[in-house]
């Protein structure tokens, strides 16, 4: 799976939405019903699936599916893979 596909699959799993229905312009809260607990669940699932680490500052700016797709592409996996 490509990075994009994996990311969309994780978003679909956490939001319990159909992966095919997820579009980049979707807002996490307005369109996918996220609250802060769901947002944090999504972050750790993405970090585990992709071997990346998202900083608190970066996380605070993630509002839409497109924001997430953009940020995972800029992040290199850390030298030390995250636990869990």
């Amino acid at each position: 799976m490509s990075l994009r596909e994996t990311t969309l699959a994780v978003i679909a799993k956490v939001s319990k939405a159909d992966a095919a229905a997820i579009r980049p312009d979707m807002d996490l809260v307005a369109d996918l019903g996220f609250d802060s607990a769901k947002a944090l669940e999504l972050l750790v699932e993405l970090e585990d699936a992709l071997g990346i680490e998202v900083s608190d500052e970066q996380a605070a700016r993630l509002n839409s599916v497109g924001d997430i797709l953009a940020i995972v592409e800029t992040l290199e996996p850390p030298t030390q893979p995250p636990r869990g």
Partner: protein
Amino acid sequence: MTADTASLPTSLREALRRAALDFPHRGIAIFDSRGRSCERQSYAELYRLATESAARFAGLGIGRDEPVLVALPTSWEWMEAWFGLLMRGAWPVASSGAGAMAAAEAQFDKVDKVMAAIGARHVVASESFRAQAGEQGFGFAHEGVITIERLRGALPARTGSAAGVSDAGDVAFLQLTSGSTGLPRAVMITHQGAIHNPVASDEAIGAPLGEPMHRLAECMVSWLPLYHDMGLIGCLMLPMLCGLDSWLLRPEAFLARPRLWLEQLGSHGTSFAPAPNFGYQLCLERIPADKREGLDLGAWRAAFTGAEMVRPETTSAFCAAFEPHGFRPESLRPCYGLAEGTLAVTFDVKGSGVRTLPAPAGTDAGFAMTDVVSNGVPIRDTSLRMTAPDGSVLPDGAIGEVCIKGPGVFRGYYRDPEATAATLKNGWFSTGDLGFLAAGELYLTGRTKDLLIVHGHNIMPDDIERLADSVTGGGGLMRSAAFSVARGAAGEQAVVVVETAEADPARFAEIGREIRIRIGRTMGLPLADLVFVRRGRIPRTTSGKMQRGELRQRYLDGTLERLHDAPMHEPTGHGAAKEPNR
């Protein structure tokens, strides 16, 4: 007070000094933001740190009885700031850090408004908080922010008598809680309340086990935010006063990996911990059967559930799920409390599991409860009574407003004599919660106040409505009203009703989405439902005051006429949010 409390410290400053001397091996362990590693320090070290930082706060010109905000995450920097201010004789005011998804700008705005309302000159915050607030043009960012670096670089001044004697009835700190004007209210907590309440709680917690909890337990494990009364009083003051270890996770670490909390509860000897219903529900949902392996909850002797309505469906499912992993169902114990009572008001002291009665007529339909939960009996020296709207005291079994009196009751809302006078009379505080007494135990059935409690956090409808109105044009074309309805184990969720003259259904989707985005980004709050109605359909009194309770009743009855097919623009992924219970 009984003889037992005669030897209690008379101030929190004295309490910290005693903890340092009497419990040299006990202390506080704080995990990093991801809950991976932790840094532990003894109470002796905390005392040293706080004394030093008190002198530096004095050097920065912070005076006695001066409110200073602390907007830091759960960390040793938080301890250095909060306890430093306490030792200085100033009033620390713990304020929320930026929540995930809640815009930083909304947090700066809140800090700015709180500082103005309580006359605070300073907020202790991180360098990135200062820099960002400065970029966004907030005035307090210039001289008002004390970063930890600035604090540590300050020349210490002699604090003189600052760390000395204070009257037990003096204000120790301010606790922020939601207020109706769109601004948090600052609850004045006294030294007496902040000492008596945890000590009385310790007794009540240990009651079914035969002795005060501190004789049985090693530690408290908490993920609750320190700006919340349950986190600050229950999980920091109580262990410090009773000589127990405190293991503190950040809320974000728990929300990201709820299992961390349960792992820690089983790792440091006999433990106890509180959480709102939502915390137990999150463990159930996010730690499915195949992820429970290796958990050992045998050491968790008291699991408190409070700060929001206790849902019997959650507690029984939690017991069933975790009993095979050592959890004792009898250790799950409901409690009731609120910031204006310092924290605890009642505890279940029977310790025979969650006990319920069938919900009586008059139970709020919006809470969707078939059974109501016993929250137990008042803690020591504390009285409880139910009153009718005319103020008369009701007999057992009758539903009325819960009123409390005792050493934990707050001194008043700081700089808000009107709100104080409206709720605090002759030592009795009218809580705004509705319930009844049966065999001396408190059962909650609803609320008189228009308040939403989502995941243990109190939210005033005005805050939601202001954001919705900012999209719709407020007093112009549209006007909104917000309330909550409970959806089974998911607990309370927010619903917004918008009055509109708009006739084009295509516009509803557009405006609705904008409202959801605005509320989501500012408050981190998803809406379970958003309803458009004709103008004039939100009921009002003759004087024009919105009647949210009546509106909510119509919504629940299904008699509210929607201008669109229900539900409007349901978020794809919000499984729990479906049709209201009818």
